[in-house]
């Protein structure tokens, strides 16, 4: 019933997490009754250490299996609704659900261009007998890749990303090249220089304006306050508060959870 109603009013891709529980060796890390992400273009997910933000995102990507519960992606690629908690991780990107990584992740040996081509390539190109597909793949996507290379001033793409910041940026670019309908960013600005952070933020705004739903986890709360339309505050495995950045910032519970009682 509820899902039908939601479907009717959905304007942008949303994720609904229902009765989702995850515990590690007996300790409950995430326990969410009902959470909808994606009502607003850009939403923030904050909370003190151990609140379960990263675990929740991994559960959504299904790289961490759920103990129980359902996660549904509304308005996925193709417009339909998909129960993603039953699907393996590699099905998320084709459905338009993409997540960037908190820690720096890259492929050894692959150049920046390789990384981009890997992201834009689809399963039909990547079969043992398809040995003449490199050219068409490149030609079909070269403009799209060039846009990013120029925007971020990447320089020569035929080299391996060197610095940690460059790898972090490449991780985000890979995600964007997948043309996500629902994008999750796990600490996108940690380790990035200021001017790159601004460019990333600008791009995320543009993407959100064009209809992609974005959820951000970030330690640098200034980014959250400036960028998000809505903020979910997590503590002890569940979302305890939700509101505009101003509301959350003023809220005594939030200050208390971060700083302890007495500083309210």
């Amino acid at each position, binding site marked *: 019933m509820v899902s039908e109603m939601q479907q009717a009013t959905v304007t942008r891709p949303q994720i609904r997490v229902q009765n989702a529980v995850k515990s590690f060796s007996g300790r409950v890390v995430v326990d969410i009754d009902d959470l909808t992400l994606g009502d607003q273009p850009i939403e923030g997910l904050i909370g003190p250490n151990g609140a379960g933000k990263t675990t929740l995102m991994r559960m959504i*990507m299904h790289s961490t*299996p759920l103990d129980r519960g359902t996660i549904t992606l509304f308005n996925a690629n193709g417009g339909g609704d998909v129960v993603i908690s039953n699907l393996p*991780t590699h099905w998320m990107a084709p459905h338009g659900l993409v997540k960037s990584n908190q*820690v720096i*992740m890259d492929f050894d040996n692959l150049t920046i261009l390789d990384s981009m081509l890997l992201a834009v390539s689809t399963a039909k190109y990547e079969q043992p007998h398809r040995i003449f597909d490199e050219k068409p793949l490149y030609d079909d996507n070269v403009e799209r890749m060039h846009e990013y290379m120029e925007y971020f001033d990447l320089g020569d793409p035929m080299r391996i990303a060197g610095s940690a910041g460059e790898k972090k940026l490449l991780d985000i670019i890979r995600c964007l090249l997948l043309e996500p309908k629902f994008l999750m960013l796990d600490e996108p600005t940690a380790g990035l220089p200021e001017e790159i952070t601004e460019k990333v933020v600008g791009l995320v705004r543009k993407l959100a304006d064009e209809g992609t739903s974005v959820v951000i986890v970030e330690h640098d709360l200034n980014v959250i306050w400036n960028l998000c339309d809505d903020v979910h505050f997590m503590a002890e495995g569940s979302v305890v508060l939700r509101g505009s950045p101003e509301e959350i910032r003023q809220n005594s519970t939030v200050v208390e959870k971060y700083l302890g009682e007495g500083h309210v």
Partner: protein
Amino acid sequence: MDLDFFSKSIVIGLTEHAPLVLAAIGFALLYRLTGLINVAYSETITLGAYFGMWFNTTYDLNFYTVLLPAGIVAGLISVGTYFAVFRPAKKLNVGALEMIIISFGLSIVLRHALQFVFGYPVRFFEVPPPVSIRVLGVGVGAFRILAVASVAAVSLALYYFIQRTSFGLQIRALASDEDLAQASGIRPLFVTVLIWFIAGVAGGMAGAFYGVSSSVAPLLGWRQFLFIFLVVVVGGRKGLGGVIITGALTGIALAAMTLQFGQVLYAQLALIVAFVALLKWRSKRSIETVKV
């Protein structure tokens, strides 16, 4: 299937495959502590067999007199391989996959170096002809019974050493969490050397037992390696106790299937298939957190 079949399987399984338990304990120590799959462990076993045979035939010594020296030599060589190969490899940041291949290379080198040293013909221990006694209605060589008893004794001693002594505690702490162990003041080098030595001693003694019950040949250890590895991978999750029980059960299963199929190779075949299937089934059930 009658009672006779079971008692036969148990007696033959335990007497013939007792060294498997001992070898698996040694391998499990290395595997669980260092995370290293040391293919060259099969050569530690072979070395034990050769040195036992050599002490036994050269100095005309009783088998039980040469058992410990053979184990100690194998243990020292095991420590030697740690310093010569595995420690430098770790310092050079060699990956897990390369480490397996390196140990594979070491295994080949040791195996064929042994052939150079001890010559090509198959060799034998010189032990008195077996006296047969009946256990559970099955005839077994008295020597084999003694061998089972001593394997059991050595295994229990090792178990006690690991579980109850202060050195054992350091070993288990280092295996459990290396960083935390260091922050608690445990010296990793000392403990690691200790492990390589004990693993080598266990392997060497197992080799001597294998050698005395049949013959001594360069492939002696390698032929057992897959089964040792399977026992440890399948049984090693619950610590040494699991390894000992899995090892003993494997021996009994091998004996039972050999009786059933009339061919030891079929028994081995069935065992490999069963164990690999078990591993597959377990991996399906325990897909845990992937770091993305």
